[in-house]
């Protein structure tokens, strides 16, 4: 190496500086920290630093009974808590051989999909907030409050649901809930149209999102990125279709796929997913069977069969996998939570190479991260 190239590399080193984004920063939606090596406004290296909200969920699983872990599932991804509860409950049901009544499965689908819409609404608002538009956040929260009202009446909590039980759900739905949900579905469709006119078609938004933050399908596969991220890269991967669980086979819905792989594609995937979730909710309400919503005779202290078991669901952010290991005792031997945000964020370092700061933050927002979902 010549002296000249040494000098220039040294100078280049001198010109970059390190920018700490977070743990308290408005764009990181919580306590994610990004260590950005910047050359002016260009990012030469982005290193996410996680763990600022690590809450020992996996260790707690080994410290309490199978049922006592249920409230934890509501606090991993607090925006889409239903799906997480679903995965855990179904994995334990698989291990213990508990059969779930059809009505309970339908209620699980309805509540999970409502929760998915509310989660996407928060993402929608927070993403626009990242892009500097404040008003859509409040419109989205308006709609979200309607869902929360419905779910609160049913489950008793607004956010961190602990509604599913081994063998069903803890409260059966009543007529008020069904009527309210129908009203919500009918009222939400025109709102989606309004969002399209107000936000999606906005020229500034399109300029900020189209062609920005490209993620290829191959990159998604290598990093295990799922959910709207992989669907925004042209791969029609959805756990609800690929590994159909619960009663998702009974419903007619599409998996929205956009091949561009940029922020706009991921944005459109989520907007379209809300419409599809409305379709599922509507069909599930139509088909809702009678019967009990909770299997009778499930013991209070569960001792599932020895072995390890998996259950994967499509959470709002992608594939959520619960792997439980049982040694036949009343306490789990190991609970492994594979969360979508973790894998989705891990590709950020590669995807943000050479981007400018505002674009990188748009990319970060389009990944839809929930930080406790990463740190667990």
């Amino acid at each position, binding site marked *: 190496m010549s002296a000249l190239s040494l000098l220039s590399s040294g100078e280049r080193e001198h010109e970059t500086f390190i920018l700490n984004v977070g743990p*308290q920063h408005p764009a990181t939606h919580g306590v994610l920290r990004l260590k950005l090596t910047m050359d002016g406004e260009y990012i030469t290296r982005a290193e996410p630093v996680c763990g600022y*909200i*690590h*809450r*020992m969920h996996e260790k707690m699983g080994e410290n309490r009974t199978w049922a006592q872990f249920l409230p934890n599932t509501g606090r991993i991804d607090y925006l889409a808590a239903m799906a997480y509860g679903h995965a855990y409950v179904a994995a334990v049901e698989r291990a213990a051989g508990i059969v779930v009544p059809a009505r309970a499965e339908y209620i699980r689908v309805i509540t999970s999909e409502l929760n998915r819409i509310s989660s996407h609404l928060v993402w929608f608002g927070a993403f626009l907030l990242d892009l500097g538009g404040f008003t859509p956040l409040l419109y989205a929260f308006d709609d979200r*409050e309607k869902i929360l009202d419905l779910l609160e009446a049913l489950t008793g909590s*607004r956010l961190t649901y602990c509604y599913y039980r081994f063998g069903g759900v803890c409260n059966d739905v009543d007529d008020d809930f069904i009527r309210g949900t129908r009203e919500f579905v009918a009222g939400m469709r025109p709102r989606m149209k309004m969002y399209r006119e107000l936000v999606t078609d906005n020229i500034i938004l399109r300029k900020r999102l189209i062609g920005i933050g490209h993620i290829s399908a191959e990159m998604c596969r290598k990093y295990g990125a799922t959910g709207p991220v992989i669907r925004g890269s042209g791969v029609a991967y959805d756990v609800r279709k690929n590994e159909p669980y619960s009663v998702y086979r009974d419903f007619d819905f599409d998996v929205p796929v956009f091949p561009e792989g940029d922020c706009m594609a991921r944005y459109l995937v989520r907007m379209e997913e809300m419409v599809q979730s409305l379709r599922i909710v509507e069909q599930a309400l139509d088909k809702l069977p009678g019967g009990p919503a909770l299997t009778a005779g499930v013991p209070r202290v569960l001792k599932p069969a020895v072995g390890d078991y998996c259950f994967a669901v499509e959470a709002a952010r992608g594939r959520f996998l619960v792997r439980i290991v049982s040694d036949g005792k009343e306490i789990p031997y190991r609970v492994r939570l594979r969360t979508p945000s973790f894998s989705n964020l891990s590709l950020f370092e590669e995807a943000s190479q050479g981007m400018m700061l505002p674009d990188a933050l748009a990319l970060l927002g389009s990944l839809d991260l929930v930080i406790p979902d990463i740190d667990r």
Partner: protein
Amino acid sequence: MLDDVLSLARANSLWPLTFGLACCAIEMMAAGASRFDISRFGAEVFRPSPRQADVMIVAGTINKKMAPAVKTLYDQMLEPKWVIAMGNCAISGGPFVYPGQYAVIEGVDKLFPVDVFIPGCPPRPEALIEGILKLEEKLTGKRRWPEVIPQ
């Protein structure tokens, strides 16, 4: 007299720090949204810079990795400053405390003084508004609205 005016002004202009930790942060956002609207009390000016904020709403669990950062934020806020511990995690570590736990700080009052505690997991937005009213009461000595006593 001057003190009264100052505390009245401060109580009516509590600018919170944009600082969400976990689940409670979503309820904090909901409190700022249209249905609950904390802007009625002039408290909707969420400032992302600790220098310009008056009240830190600790909304979520603080673990050992985060504790130094939270402490720094508190130190960077300028006097007069107040702290609201929102939710069980900020009060005591909440559901994440068990014998032998290794990550969670058991209550934000271990790090710095707290003015108002709001219980709940997470507390409802109404509870946060009540917490802000309590803080105003602490500053001015007068309660803004009559307290509603459940029947």
